[in-house]
């Protein structure tokens, strides 16, 4: 099946998400859409899948124009989609999820799930998936959930399979498995549209790459093109992908976590007996697949978690049991993982957001009164220093782009002397240009002699920034390894292998002692 998009334009109000996009997906090809977050890749695919109606333009299948009124029409035409956020009902079983919308029934509308189960087993066998049709989706690992999504499309005889950022939630090992599945689907004659902003994966999997920037097609690229070329096409200017930071000059270890355990209300230990130290002038990166205790770990440090046992000491002072405000005032800077929910108040101005952690202290307040002049002055300085692109300091923070919002949060947290800096997902959803800037700021905070903890699920970012890497798996510390540890070793650790075992299986073994103090 040949799929063509002609002059697709999608506007949301005055915002143009897709601007006259042309795309041809040939049968049996893996066609990648490469672009930054917010470039309009997902919007385009939602148009193709019938979720959005295009403002202008046409979709053609085998040369014939089609009109989709909803995902049902797209599916009937042979288009399947695996969404970035899985479209699975968590409390349903795999079979129920796959049957939904396409139910086989007996007399009287009674469900016939056996038929669905048989189909699931057939497809599982064909592609080597291990998916139990009767498992409840919320109990399954994300990798298996993703396979259930793929089965969902295959059961509906999809000829074109759209995969939207499929590797975002996977471990490196699961990613490799997914790439193998894609190759197999391709050899069965299916077309794959692979959407990603990760250059390495795109290069590995594609037959053809189309680069999208700010809603427009920039051009096609060959998978053999260099990463730097692809990155500059994606961003629109030349970017340096490596930071070239100076080696760390670690001083005294002033931040010490000892036997930290955080228990969830369900009784599960989400952070399980973690001990680590961070020295002044050193970046420790916490690596791991999302949902392995990173959030709880950082929140425990900030006093945002209940049921915490163990000890967290900063320059000898115990932080466990103290209030969040007290912890912030003792010199902890914190960039939370979800800036729009926890980092900013979207309806507040940029200037107000820049003093959220010190609004009641001098020089921004005196007694009960705030000093608007000082707040505005501070905002002007920070906006210049961090190159925040905003119409004015009084614009609502929620109206800024992701990268600029992150700069506002970073500016607030880094604009005072710190004893500890923690940044969770510092560059998630941030354009490549801003990533470079934010990374440099983090390194310069390190060079000022602050202990820095970075939590990231992106291995690229971890390897870029870290002086040492701690890997979390199911709330446990799999080990702390030097910053130059190979991806393969880290991948194994992220899947639950201890540091020593992982390094033992790694041919390009690094010396485990070299990064240790």
């Amino acid at each position, binding site marked *: 099946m040949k799929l063509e998009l002609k002059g697709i334009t999608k506007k949301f109000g005055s915002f143009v998400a897709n601007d006259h996009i042309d795309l041809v997906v040939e049968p049996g090809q893996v066609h990648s859409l490469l672009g930054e977050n917010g470039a309009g890749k997902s919007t385009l695919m939602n148009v193709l*899948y019938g979720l959005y109606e295009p403002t202008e333009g046409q979709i053609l299948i085998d040369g014939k124009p089609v009109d989709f009124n909803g995902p049902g029409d797209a599916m009937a035409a042979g288009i399947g989609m695996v969404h970035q956020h899985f479209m699975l009902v968590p409390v349903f079983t795999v079979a129920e999820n796959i049957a939904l919308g396409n139910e086989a029934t007996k007399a009287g509308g009674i469900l016939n799930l056996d038929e669905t189960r048989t189909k699931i087993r057939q497809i599982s066998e064909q592609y080597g998936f291990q998916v139990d049709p009767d498992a409840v989706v919320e109990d399954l690992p994300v990798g298996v959930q993703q396979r259930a999504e793929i089965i969902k499309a295959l059961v509906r005889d999809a000829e074109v399979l759209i995969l939207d950022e499929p590797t975002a939630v996977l471990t490196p090992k699961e990613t490799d498995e997914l790439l193998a599945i894609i190759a197999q689907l391709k050899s069965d004659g299916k077309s794959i549209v692979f959407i990603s902003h990760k250059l390495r994966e795109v290069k590995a999997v594609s037959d053809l790459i189309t680069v999208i920037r700010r809603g427009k097609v920039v051009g096609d690229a060959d998978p053999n093109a260099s990463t730097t070329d692809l990155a500059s096409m994606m961003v629109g200017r030349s970017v340096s992908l490596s930071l070239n930071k100076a080696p760390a000059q670690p001083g005294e270890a002033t931040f010490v976590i000892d036997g930290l355990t955080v228990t969830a209300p369900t009784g599960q230990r989400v952070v399980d007996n973690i001990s680590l130290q961070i020295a002044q002038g050193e970046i420790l990166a916490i690596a791991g697949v999302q949902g392995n205790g990173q959030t709880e770990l950082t929140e425990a440090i900030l006093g945002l978690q209940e049921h915490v046992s163990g000890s967290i000491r900063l320059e000898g002072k115990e932080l466990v049991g103290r209030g969040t405000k007290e912890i912030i005032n003792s010199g902890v800077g914190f960039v939370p993982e979800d800036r729009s929910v926890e980092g900013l108040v979207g309806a507040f101005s940029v200037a107000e957001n820049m003093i959220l952690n010190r609004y009641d202290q001098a020089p921004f307040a005196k007694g009960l009164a705030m000093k608007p002049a000082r707040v505005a002055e501070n905002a002007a300085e920070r906006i210049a220093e961090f190159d925040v692109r905003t119409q004015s300091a009084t614009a609502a923070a929620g109206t800024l782009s992701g990268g600029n919002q992150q700069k506002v949060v970073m500016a607030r947290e880094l604009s005072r002397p710190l004893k500890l800096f923690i940044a969770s997902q510092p560059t998630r959803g941030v354009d490549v240009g801003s990533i470079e800037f934010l990374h440099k700021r983090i390194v310069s905070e390190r060079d000022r002699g602050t202990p820095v903890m970075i939590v990231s699920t992106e291995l690229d970012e971890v390897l870029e920034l870290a002086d040492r890497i701690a890997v979390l798996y199911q709330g446990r510390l799999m080990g702390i390894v030097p910053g130059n540890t190979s991806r393969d070793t880290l991948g194994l650790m992220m899947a639950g292998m201890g540091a020593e075992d992982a390094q033992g299986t790694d041919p390009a073994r690094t010396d485990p002692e070299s990064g240790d*103090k």
Partner: protein
Amino acid sequence: MSTAVSTAPEQSTTRAGAVRSWKTPITLAVLAVFALLVFAIGAPGNEVTFRLSDPGDAIVLPPIVVFAPVMGWIGAVIMVAAAALAFVQVRAGRPVPGWLIAVFAVVFVAAFLSWIVGSARTPNVALYGLLAGSVTLAVPLIFGSLSGVLCERSGVINIAIEGQLLFGAFSAAVAGSLSGSAFVGLMAAAVGGVLVSLVLAVFSIKYLVNQVIVGVVLNVLVSGLTGFLFSTVLSADAETWNSPPRLPVISIPFLSDIPIIGPILFEQAIVGYLMYVAVAVIYIGLFHTKWGLRTRAVGEHPKAADTLGVKVNRMRFMNVSLAGVVAGLGGAFFTLVSVSSFGRDMTAGQGYIALAALIFGRWNPIGAFFAALLFGFATNLQYVLSFLGTPVPNQFLAMLPYIVTIFAVAGLVGRSRAPAANGVPYIKG
């Protein structure tokens, strides 16, 4: 120093910092102490008679006669033991088993009954009447809860159950009086319920108004509207407008002669039989049919359903309308079965109790059925006891159904899980 800490799994099983919930054992302990003081130590020194069948029945069972202090002490000992066991369980980090709570509840009710009936002027009660009356009182509650199940499983919060019941009762009374036929009244009740539902559906699904507010406003609107029409039209000429015929009670031969359960299950008006049918049909429909799968999907993750071609809002509209039919039939019970005339605000908060039964029953038709039975039992117990003349003031007895509601919903349900998208309007794109 070495920072390469490898955490072995054995290490992590040191002192479990597990989060224990002491709520259940503490509640049980307080109730057990209360039972010990009141039902055992404070037991009246006389015999209590529980009659199991009416002398006119086909099969007559002998009454159960117990000595109140014996019953009180046995009950109290069992309850104290159960509370202690609950403490042991929680201490060991295990949840309190459901059967333990069930045993505790049954024993508590039995001890309570023997104490309160024993203290009454006539320590003699018809157990069969108490149970049969409970079911009868539970009928509108069950219909109300089922209406809630249909709405909320598809993702629309239904606070308007009260309004649906009241308008159903009103419609049944008026249509029944005008036509002279109880069955026409029954149909009209369903239509009345649907009318309330349509307003709820249009505002919450199409205009995205906060569903709780729409529901509350609808209740006030229906109460005002029916109250106004009652005082102007219905009271002026009650003969024409407000004297509906009753639905006949249909006894199923032989089955209705079975002691105790016969009169409960097989001697009812058509509404009562419809209630059992509705529970079964909605249960099977929800969990074993295509319609049910889609309904639940729309209530849990509407976007996922949408990506599979399920029309989310159409599905919700259909379910809310159907819920109106069900609640309307429950409303008919008030004017076509229990009394044969409409009275101002005659549903008296039953819709809210039905809402509680829905939550207590965990959004499951069968759970809601049993929860409603419990509330029906509490209500009937209050009537029976005030009739017997107990030392407990009437006003306290009148609180009984509501106290049971609060305890049931807050104390015993624990963490019940509503449909994930309940109350969240679905906006495409």
